C-alpha cells in the first residue's frame, strides 16, 4: 500500500499546478449573523423547522421537572443520562434516572449540549469522558439541554468554540438537526428511522452567572 501511496501522489503531482490557499473571508449567510437579541429566536425558528420540540426552562435547576414532564408525555418511566457533573448535581427526586452510556433498552436519553447553531437550529454534541456518542442515537426520545449562552451564530463560530485553532477536535462531533427520519419508502417522510423519533430541546433562558 506504500507503493500505491507513492504512485497516487506522483500521478497527482504531474497533473496539477500547486497554488496557495486563497484564505477566503468566510461566506456566512445573513441568518447566521443574528445579533445577540435575535440569536435565540433564530435558533428556535430553525430547530422547529427541523421538527425538534423546544421547551423553555427558566433556570437550570428546573431541568428535572422538565425532564419528568417529557417522560410523562411520552409514557416512559426512566431515563439514561450522560454522567456530566452539571446533571449529576441536580436534585432528581421523583425521576428514575441513571447515569452512563445507553443500552439497547433505553427509551430516553439526556445530555447537555456543547453548543447550538442559530443558523440552522442545530445541536452540537461531542464525544468525551462524560458524553457517550451512542446515547445520542440509541434511545427513542432524545432530550438535550441547551443553555442560551451556548448558542453560536454559525458553524464557523462553533469550530472556534470547540478550539479547532489550538487543539485536536473530539473523536466525534455530532451536529443534530431534528429527529431521525427517512424518506426511503416512496419518498414519504417518516420519523424515527434508526435514531430518536423525538428530539426535545430544553432551552435554559437564565443569564450566565
Amino acid at each position, binding site marked *: 500500500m506504500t507503493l500505491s501511496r507513492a504512485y*497516487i501522489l506522483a500521478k497527482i503531482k504531474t497533473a496539477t499546478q500547486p497554488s496557495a490557499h486563497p484564505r477566503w473571508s468566510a*461566506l456566512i449567510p445573513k441568518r447566521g449573523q443574528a445579533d445577540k437579541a435575535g440569536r435565540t429566536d433564530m435558533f428556535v425558528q430553525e430547530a422547529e423547522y427541523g421538527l425538534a420540540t423546544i421547551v423553555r426552562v427558566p433556570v437550570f435547576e428546573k431541568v428535572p421537572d422538565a425532564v419528568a414532564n417529557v417522560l410523562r408525555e411520552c409514557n416512559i418511566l426512566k431515563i439514561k443520562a450522560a454522567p456530566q457533573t452539571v446533571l449529576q448535581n441536580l436534585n432528581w427526586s421523583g425521576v428514575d434516572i441513571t447515569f452512563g452510556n445507553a443500552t439497547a433498552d433505553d427509551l430516553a436519553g439526556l445530555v447537555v449540549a456543547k453548543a447550538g447553531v442559530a443558523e440552522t437550529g442545530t445541536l452540537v454534541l461531542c464525544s468525551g469522558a462524560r458524553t457517550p456518542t451512542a446515547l445520542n442515537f440509541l434511545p427513542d426520545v432524545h432530550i438535550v439541554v441547551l443553555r442560551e449562552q451556548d448558542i453560536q451564530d454559525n458553524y464557523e463560530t462553533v469550530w472556534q468554540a470547540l478550539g*479547532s485553532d489550538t487543539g485536536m477536535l473530539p473523536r466525534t462531533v455530532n451536529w443534530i438537526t431534528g429527529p431521525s427520519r427517512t424518506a426511503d419508502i416512496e419518498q414519504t417522510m417518516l420519523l424515527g428511522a*434508526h*435514531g430518536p423519533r423525538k428530539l426535545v430541546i430544553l432551552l435554559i433562558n437564565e443569564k450566565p452567572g
Partner: protein
Amino acid sequence: MTLFSQPNPQCHDFLNGAHDALANDRLQKQLAKSLKDGFQKKRLKGMSRLPEYEQLRDRARDIKIHTLENLDLYLEQFETQVINAGGQVHWAKDDGEACQIILDICDGVKAKTVTKGKSMITEEIGLNAQLKAQGIVPIETDLGEYIIQLRDEPPSHIIAPAFHISKEQVADTFRQHHADQKRDRDLSEPTTLVHEARTELRAKFLSADVGITGANFLIAESGTGVIVTNEGNGDLTQSLPSVHIAVGSIEKIVPTLEDADTLLRLLARTATGQELSVYTTFFSGAKRTTDMDGPEQFHLVLLDNRRSDLLGGPLHDVLRCIRCGACINHCPIYGKVSGHAYGWVYPGPIGSILTPHFVGVDEAHLLPNACTMCGRCEEVCPVRIALPKLLRIWRGRAFEAGYPAGLQRLALKIWAALAKRAGLYRWMARLSVFGLRLLGPLRPYHLPKPQGGTFMDRYNGGEK
C-alpha cells in the same frame, strides 16, 4: 494477485433497460411523483430559504478548484492529521486493493458481521461481494440500502437507493425475509415498515464486529471525515463496533473546516431541500483513551481507482462533484428510464460521465448519448460542473472509437458534411420542409406538419 472486484457493468444493454422502464406504468408514476413533486420542489424550497445560495455555489466551486490543484498536498496533510488523531490511512490505487485492505482489517479482528452506512464508493468497489466471499456478512443499515440488499438489487439512485420500489414491494420483501414475524401481520402502512426495519436492524448494530461508512468530505487541516445521514444509521455503524473503517475517494478532500461548512450549506439543500441532513457527523481518528465509547481502531481507506487519471485532463471538472444527486433528479432521461437502465453504479448525467471512465467506452458508449443536452443538470449543479460539455467529450470519444456504427454513423457523417456548408444545409432544410408537407397524411406519426418555412427563412423574413 490483484483482485478485480468492481460490479459487472450492463451499460451495453441500456436500450433494453430503457424499454423495460418505459413499459412499467408503476415505475413511471413513481418517477413522475418523486422527481417533479418531490426532489425538484424540495430543492426550490430549500434555495428560497437561503438568499446567499448562488454566492455559496461560486464559493463551493472555487474551493473544489483550488483543492484539486493542490490535491497531493492536502492528501498528505490529511494523512498526517488522521495519524495524529490515532487513526490509520490506507492508500488504495484501485477497487481490488481497497477491498483487500478492508478484508485484511476484518480478518485482523476475526470479524463475522459488518454493519454498513450508505456508501456509493463501496458499491463502486463491489465490497459486499468480496466480504461475502470471505464468509463475512455485510449488513446494509440505511433503510433504502437494506431493502435493496434483501431484494438483491443494485441502487437506482445515489441518494435514494430504493427509489424504484413501491411500499407494497417493500412489504412483500419484509414478509419473505423477516421470518420470525407473524406472516399475516398488517404491513400496509410505511410507518409499520420503518418500525419493523428498525427493530430488525437494532440487534445487528449492537453485535457487529466492524462498521464501514463512506465519507462525504475529508477535511485536511484536522484529519476529519464527515458523513451526513437522516436516519442515524451511519452513526450507530461507526460508534458501536470496536473498528470503524471509512472509505473515501481522493477528491473528497477539502482544506479546512470552514470550507466544509460552505459545502455543507449546499449539500443537503440541493439534494433534499433540507437546511442540513439530520445528522452531520465529524469523526477524527480513533476513540480517545478517556472517551466513554467509540471505535478502538479507526481506518481510513483512500481510494484513487483512476480518478487521478482525470486530473488535468478534459474531464477534470467532474472531480468537483459532491454527489448530491441534483443532476439525476432534474434529468429528463433519468426521469423516464430510472437508474437501473444505466447499467452501473452511478446513474443519470453524473453517471454517464463517470461510468465510461470506469468501465470503458466500448461498454458505456450509449450513456453519454442518452442525453437531450437540455442543460438542466448544469443549471442545478451546486459546484457548477458543466455536465453537458463533459458528456459531449464522451460523445466525441465514442465516435472516435467507432460508435455508433453502420447506418447511424453514415447519417451522422452526412449531416456533419452538410452542417459545415451553410448554404447547402439551408437548401436541404427547405427541401425537407417541402417534402414533409408533400407527404401530407403519410407523414410518420411522430413528425409534426411543418408550420411555414425553415427557421432561417422565417428569421431572415423578419420574424423574431
